[in-house]
């Protein structure tokens, strides 16, 4: 069969054609919403019209078979209308209240998990990992699955002082921008990369490689037509590997993950914040990363039992102080938590007022 005629630069389809009639009618005229359960909410328009949303978890990697099953549900109860959230959940858009209980029943029967709305833990923003990335120092999807199995009650029912956003990045490139999450896992290398000098001269550009290093650890090695890496300056970021494949940084026994906490992206009450490093290293332990899961769960539980209502993790820590965070969680404080990269002067304490 002949191929259809290709078209270029048409852009995405117009969103309006995908909206259910109740949205089309009340577009831009929503008045308020209420969270009914961790998996359902209702939006009410100025006109009095209502739209119910049922949110379910997704592993983000979806087979076409599962997408079709999601379509089946949407056709049965939502006139075929659904959307995805920015954190990869699926939202069924229910226009008729009498479909609300039946869709929930149907989703439960099919094994979909409802939740993720409000003060709990919703889906995890993450990167490709071993599933599909050349740069991965761990598997993001496996970490997410292992953490969320353990934290699942916070998705489905159990509540926290505020929402808690998790993220996983499988290397410091952080395609998932984990740097502003309540708790994030970032995979790290811990060993100076090895340069394959023979391949270097054919595959890499000297100025690009030298320029890629944030700590100026790379210098030319004219004799070998390659580069040298100064082990005293290298912080194993892997940016040289990104621009030059013959610089190998993967190391199964030394690659691991670090945990950063206390970031947020909204401006509610306090400004957006970066996440800060509290656990510098845990070994990669696939398939279930038990120590990482235990560490995250522990931090969630200490936050849950100490923070005030509406305080995000980072706001709670700022109120009690980082020294108290370390004492309450019992996490060892190490040299890695003291910035010796670019921000030391902004992050050291400059007052004698702290807690014991």
């Amino acid at each position, binding site marked *: 069969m002949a191929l259809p005629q290709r078209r270029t630069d048409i852009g995405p389809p117009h969103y309006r054609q995908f909206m259910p009639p109740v949205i089309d009618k009340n577009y831009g005229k929503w008045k308020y919403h209420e969270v009914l359960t961790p998996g359902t909410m209702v939006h009410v328009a100025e006109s009095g019209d209502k739209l119910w949303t049922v949110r379910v978890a997704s592993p983000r990697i979806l087979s076409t078979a599962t997408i079709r099953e999601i379509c089946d549900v949407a056709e049965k109860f939502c006139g075929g209308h659904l959307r995805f959230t920015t954190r990869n959940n699926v939202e069924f858009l229910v226009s008729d209240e009498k479909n609300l209980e039946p869709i929930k029943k149907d989703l439960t029967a099919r094994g979909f998990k409802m939740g993720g709305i409000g003060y709990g833990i919703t889906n995890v923003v993450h990167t490709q990992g071993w599933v599909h990335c050349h740069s991965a120092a761990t598997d993001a999807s496996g970490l997410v699955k292992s953490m969320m199995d353990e934290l*699942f009650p916070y998705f489905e029912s159990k509540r926290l002082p505020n929402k808690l956003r998790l993220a996983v990045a499988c290397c410091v490139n952080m*395609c998932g921008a984990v740097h502003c999450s309540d708790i994030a896992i970032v995979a790290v290398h811990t060993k100076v990369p090895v340069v394959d000098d023979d391949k270097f001269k054919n595959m890499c550009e000297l100025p690009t490689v030298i320029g890629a290093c944030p700590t100026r650890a790379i210098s030319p090695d004219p004799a070998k037509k390659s580069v040298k890496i100064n082990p005293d300056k290298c912080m194993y970021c892997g*940016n040289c590997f990104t621009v030059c494949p013959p610089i190998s940084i993967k190391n199964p026994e030394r690659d691991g993950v670090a945990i950063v906490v206390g970031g947020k992206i*909204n*401006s509610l009450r306090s400004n957006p914040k970066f996440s800060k490093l509290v656990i510098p290293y845990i070994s990669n332990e696939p398939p279930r990363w038990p120590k990482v899961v235990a560490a995250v769960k522990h931090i969630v539980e200490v936050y849950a039992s100490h923070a005030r209502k509406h305080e995000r993790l980072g706001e709670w820590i700022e109120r009690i102080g980082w020294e108290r965070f370390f004492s309450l969680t019992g996490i060892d404080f190490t040299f890695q938590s003291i910035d010796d990269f670019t921000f030391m002067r902004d992050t050291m304490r400059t007052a004698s007022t702290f807690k014991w």
Partner: protein
Amino acid sequence: MKKYNTPLIDQLEKGPWPSFVTEMKKAGKNNEMANDAVGHLEKCYTTKMGYWKHGGIVGVLGYGGGIIGRYSELGEEFPGVAHFHTVRLNQPSGFFYTSKALREICDIWDKYGSGLTNMHGSTGDIVLLGTKTDALETIFAEYSSRGWDLGGSGSDLRTPSCCVGPGRCEWSNYDTLDLVYNLTQEFQDELHRPMFSYKFKIKAAGCACDCVASIARSDFSIIGTWKGDILIDQKEVQNYAKKGMNIMSEIVGMCPTQCMSYDGKELKIDNAECSRCMHCISKMTKALRPSGERGATICMGSKAPIVVGSLLSWVIIPFIKLESPYTELKELIRKIWDWWDDNAKPRERIGEVIEMKGMRSFLEAIGVPPMPQQIKEPRKDPFMFYTEADITAYKAKEAEEKKTGKYRF
């Protein structure tokens, strides 16, 4: 089809959270590529290492972005993933779909690809994971003839993305869905044909809740805001109190500017002192809502840590009105790209170039005056640049003061 023994990743099929391994196996039932991806992943779990090579340059005719080449080092052992390229499809604004549209996407993908997807990628695209080089033109013809175009990749404008906006949210201060659609259409050339120093991301959030993480994840963050008062429905305030909300500690006490008061009957807001953080509005959505002039704050520069540390976006334009056809915003974006083009080295994001060249030179180039809303605090050091024009202006001001006998600081 080869049957792989996968004891390690099988453990990730247990537990309540939906399993990506189950999804991969589902796709692998009828698809050689997905089946080999399952075996390939088990290998990674066994050795604790990845085997994907750096992306090669593959694409469709006339486009430089949208397809990411992916090859495995283990192509002989797992021929189904020897080529396993990604196709990025530009998602509709707000991730709204009909089942008909999704089925269409799936049908084509099953025919030519692995049957595996990401709904969605970090930037927002529909990510179709795993196909071969010789299928790319066919895939593009199938999708584009049905109204789906590719998204961005490489050193180009990445696919713009937004929150749900006026589609289903009462807080959106401008039409995020329309703006993102409009900008995406306007900048098709920049999206499909990489001509920048590096990537450029645009994200549009309707309010300071920033559900699309624009302040942390986009070079150009558009965050909705307003200039009028917060309207108060006192009856609804009372309803919140009756339902158990402690208005003093949960609302008034948590207001960052302390511009609210409550005497048990009436909630008051000193609107001039409000910084529009959205805490009170988001907790009392039935009682409080913004009013008056609507628009957005433009912030710029955020990115992940490579190369010299993460950045959050900086306030550049405190307030801009955003109404179709968004001429002022489009002109601004073009001016910004021109300056970036003139000043960036390869692989330098705009935030890094602004840091390198100085905020002043950037603001002057795009014609934005200095404003206290742009900064957290003024500089702490006395090492300043003075241009001749600056000094001439200060001298002129002093001459004026001598004439009028009144100081203007």
